[in-house]
């Protein structure tokens, strides 16, 4: 396998298909897009199968001096691998989700989605700072078109807001990158990861990166573009936005800000914790009051991402691993929830919660899947949400018990708004005539639901498959942060095991003894 440019191939397949889609007719372009995304998914599986867990930090590296000042350098570590898998897994499902819903300019639509895929996996593969920035920013253009052309009634406003908001954040990061390149004299990310920037400079660089990544994330109070973008975007657009694009911000945190500016991260940790705490409580309460399903899920995304940021800045193994699992889990679950909304939106063309009710009667299969994803979003044990939330909250507790306390209320509020949503939509009397006429899932929708459900359960029951590739990278980051890490307030001590008690299999991590629950 070594030497074969599989990463370039994964970029090339959707890129070529994107150009092709522009020139073939509507019908053919759907199949081209589906074929290309499935092919990329297969390549992704080959990539995962060949990834050497515990091997070199950077694998499948490719390097070509194409651009003079910066390089075409690709390579992945475990974290990037898992996020690439998430992207290539969601992509074919997105194409299927828009199979019937998109009727106009299908070729352009498919082309934009394929470009989106190139850009997203490119971000995770890039090993050169400028290459990363180019991929990172390039995502704006296809998403602008996706929201603006195929979105809802207020789509133009949402597209503008999305574009300008995220652009304003990103440009400051570019200035910081220029300063970093000038200081370190290289654009190579692995080298920069081990470069010690002066502490004073770190603070400024950290703030500039934060300005960009907090918007992408999005963190309170710069999250306001997200509900607008989600509500107006077509179903598949929301799926990819919530599923992968929101992860770019968190990926930037763990890939750049924390290992490159450890001192500044430690100093300014309070900003992240403070904003995360506000976000968890505030956006959960806002979600509770929504009457629009997509808006509700959008606000719940902000709350989940806040737990991710808090978990990352816990600076310990559990916190970071948990945050990464939440990223993956939220990627699958929120995409699934947006798809659930899309399914009934396609039938009734409204997202108003009050217009529905009693779906359990005439759409039992739908109700079952929706229930599963609702539970996964709440974090019920056995689903993917539980693993991530438990791990990250355990990590946060070690860093600061108050932050953990506030973030945990998010779980309770999360249960409240999700169950409330579920009750209003699925339970109750089936009184409305148009709702009665809605048919249950068709074969295409089953095809999308089943893989999403399977992955959500897999991640909940056996998270080790997903944690194993990332563990080494998290350890590296934690080691890099260790000198700057402030002492936590929890002072965990291992309890004395009773001599006779048969201790069960020890899961990874060591926080068993801490009384987190």
């Amino acid at each position, binding site marked *: 396998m070594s030497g074969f440019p599989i990463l370039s191939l994964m970029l090339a397949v959707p890129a070529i298909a994107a150009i092709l889609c522009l020139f073939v007719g509507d019908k053919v372009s759907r199949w081209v897009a589906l074929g290309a995304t499935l092919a990329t998914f297969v390549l992704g599986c080959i990539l995962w199968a060949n990834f050497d867990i515990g091997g070199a930090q950077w694998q499948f590296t490719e390097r070509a001096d*194409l*651009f*003079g*000042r910066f390089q075409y350098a690709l390579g992945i570590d475990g974290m990037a691998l898992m996020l690439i898998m998430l992207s290539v897994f969601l992509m074919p499902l997105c194409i299927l989700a828009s199979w019937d819903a998109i009727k106009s*300019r299908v070729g*352009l639509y498919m082309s934009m989605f394929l470009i989106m895929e190139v850009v997203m996996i490119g971000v995770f593969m890039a090993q050169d700072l*400028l290459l990363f*920035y*180019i*991929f990172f*920013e*390039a995502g*704006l*253009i296809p998403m*602008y*078109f996706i929201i*603006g*052309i195929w979105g809802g009634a207020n*789509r*133009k406003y949402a*597209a*503008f807001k999305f*574009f*300008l908001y995220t*652009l*304003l954040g990103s*440009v*400051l990061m*570019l*200035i910081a990158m*220029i*300063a970093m*390149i*000038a200081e370190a004299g290289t654009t190579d990310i692995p080298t920069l990861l081990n470069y010690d920037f002066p502490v004073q400079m770190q603070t400024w660089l950290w703030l500039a990166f934060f300005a960009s990544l907090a918007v992408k994330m999005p963190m309170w109070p710069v999250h306001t573009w997200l509900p607008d973008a989600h509500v107006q975007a077509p179903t598949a657009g929301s799926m990819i936005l919530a599923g992968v694009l929101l992860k770019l911000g968190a990926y930037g945190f763990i890939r750049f800000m924390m290992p490159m500016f450890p001192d500044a991260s430690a100093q300014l940790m309070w900003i992240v914790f403070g904003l995360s705490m506000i976000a968890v409580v505030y956006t959960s309460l806002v979600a509770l009051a929504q009457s629009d399903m997509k808006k509700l899920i959008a606000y719940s995304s902000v709350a989940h991402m806040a737990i991710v940021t808090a978990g990352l800045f816990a600076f310990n193994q559990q916190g970071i691993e948990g945050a990464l699992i939440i990223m993956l889990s939220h990627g699958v679950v929120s995409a699934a929830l947006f798809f659930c909304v899309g399914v009934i939106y396609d039938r009734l063309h409204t997202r108003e919660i009050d217009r529905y009710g009693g779906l359990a009667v005439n759409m039992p299969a739908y109700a079952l899947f929706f229930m599963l994803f609702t539970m996964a979003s709440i974090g019920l044990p056995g689903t993917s949400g539980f693993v991530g939330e438990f791990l990250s909250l355990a990590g946060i507790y070690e860093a600061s018990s108050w932050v953990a306390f506030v973030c945990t209320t998010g779980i309770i509020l999360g249960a409240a708004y999700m169950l409330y949503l579920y009750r209003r939509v699925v339970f109750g009397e089936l009184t409305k005539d148009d709702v009665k006429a809605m048919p249950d899932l068709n074969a295409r929708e089953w095809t999308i639901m089943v893989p999403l459900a399977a992955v959500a359960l897999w991640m909940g029951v056996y998270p080790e498959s997903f944690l194993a590739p990332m563990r080494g990278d998290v350890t590296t980051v934690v080691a890099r942060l260790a000198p700057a890490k402030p002492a936590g307030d929890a002072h965990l001590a291992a309890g004395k095991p009773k001599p006779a008690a048969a201790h069960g299999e020890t899961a990874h991590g060591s926080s068993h003894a801490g009384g987190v629950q």
Partner: protein
Amino acid sequence: MTADLMLIWPELILTIGGLITLMLGTFLGDRNVGLYQLSSLLTLAAAAAAVVALFGVETTVFSGTLSVDSFGGFAKLLIYAASFVCIVIAPRFFNGGMRAEYPTLILFAALGMGIMASSRDLMTLYVGLELNSLAAYVLASFMRTDERSSEAGLKYFVLGALASGMLLYGISLLYGFTGTTDFAGIAKVLGGELNIGLIFGIVFVLAGLGFKISAVPFHMWTPDVYEGAPTPVTTFFASAPKVAAMALMTRVVIDAMGPAVGAWQQIIIFLSLASIILGAVGAIGQKNIKRLLAYSSINNVGFMLVGLAAGTQQGVEGVLTYLLVYMLTTLGAFLVVLQLRDADGNQVESIPALAGLSQRRPGLAAAMAVFLFSLAGIPPLFGFWPKYLVFEAAVNANLVPLAVAGIVASVIGAFYYIAIIKTMYFDDKSDTEFPAGGGAIVEDAVITASALWLSVIGYLFIPVLAILSASAAAVLF
């Protein structure tokens, strides 16, 4: 003397070729469009070939008043290329009303611009500038019967004359206080103590040149002239003279004023930020696509000045790369505007009429979207790269506040670019039909080629661009 003449072949070819073209038009009549167009195009090609042949020669001619170097060569190649395109696209626009003066004037303007780009003396600077300007005034009012065109020519002339006056006043002050018109001599004096006369001289010279590059606050003529002038002429104004004036400004600032950094840097920084911000804000609300592109050019000049403000070789390299990419983008954008004709064959310049263009002419709309995103500097389009270079130069020259302010203001600029894309892609079709066809193959080819180059392909040329711009910029340091 003869040896000197051997080194100015490009200028000689343009002079002779321009005269031949004029004669052809006079004696064979204006209807032989093909003939005089061919002669003018051949002249430009020959002049470009002469520039290439002289590449690598670094010397001065005519007692040090004119330099022959790769900096001038780089600028001249861009100028000739832009002039070439502007002559090619003209006959279809004028639709039978084409006259031999058009290519002749463009040739003479190109000659003047070549002199601007390679002057190293205040006198040659002025001669080149006026040669270009006089041709340009006539070109702006080329459609004699069109009111807007005459108005554009008049406005351009009056304001241009004012700017020339300011420039001359500055030149006289510099000459008076340094005792020389030679750039190197001026630099030597400016390296010492600065007095109020010298500072006034610097300010007035920069003001005069600021008019030529249409930097704020000397930009007022730009939207009116761009709107009023015939579209091929606007295409010309937006491309070649920008290159020449920017090259000239760079040479004056670095070569003649180099040692007095404190005196000129603040001025350039002000011009730069004012242009970026006003160019962006002014464009919002424009309903005419040519006016909007005029504001866009003001905005882009601001970014070029960021590189110049750095005053380093890296900054000049950034400016040169910027000029090249900007010229290609502008040419492409104006060629698209040129193709926008309604069912009766009239030019359409109103932005609301572009609504739904992507459904009527998908290829054209896509090309325009590429140009606009590129002008906004959104990666992965190649317009990002020169912006990156100038900001990098500014950061490395410790001008971080300038870089931050400039890049934040660039987001305002992005707003109106994506607003046009919104009109073309998101809005419902307007009543205006844009029948396809009738376009010259050359136009389509230029649009396609520049759109492709500005998409990802351009990045592959970075190493070549870096070598070219570095060798050109090195001349000044």
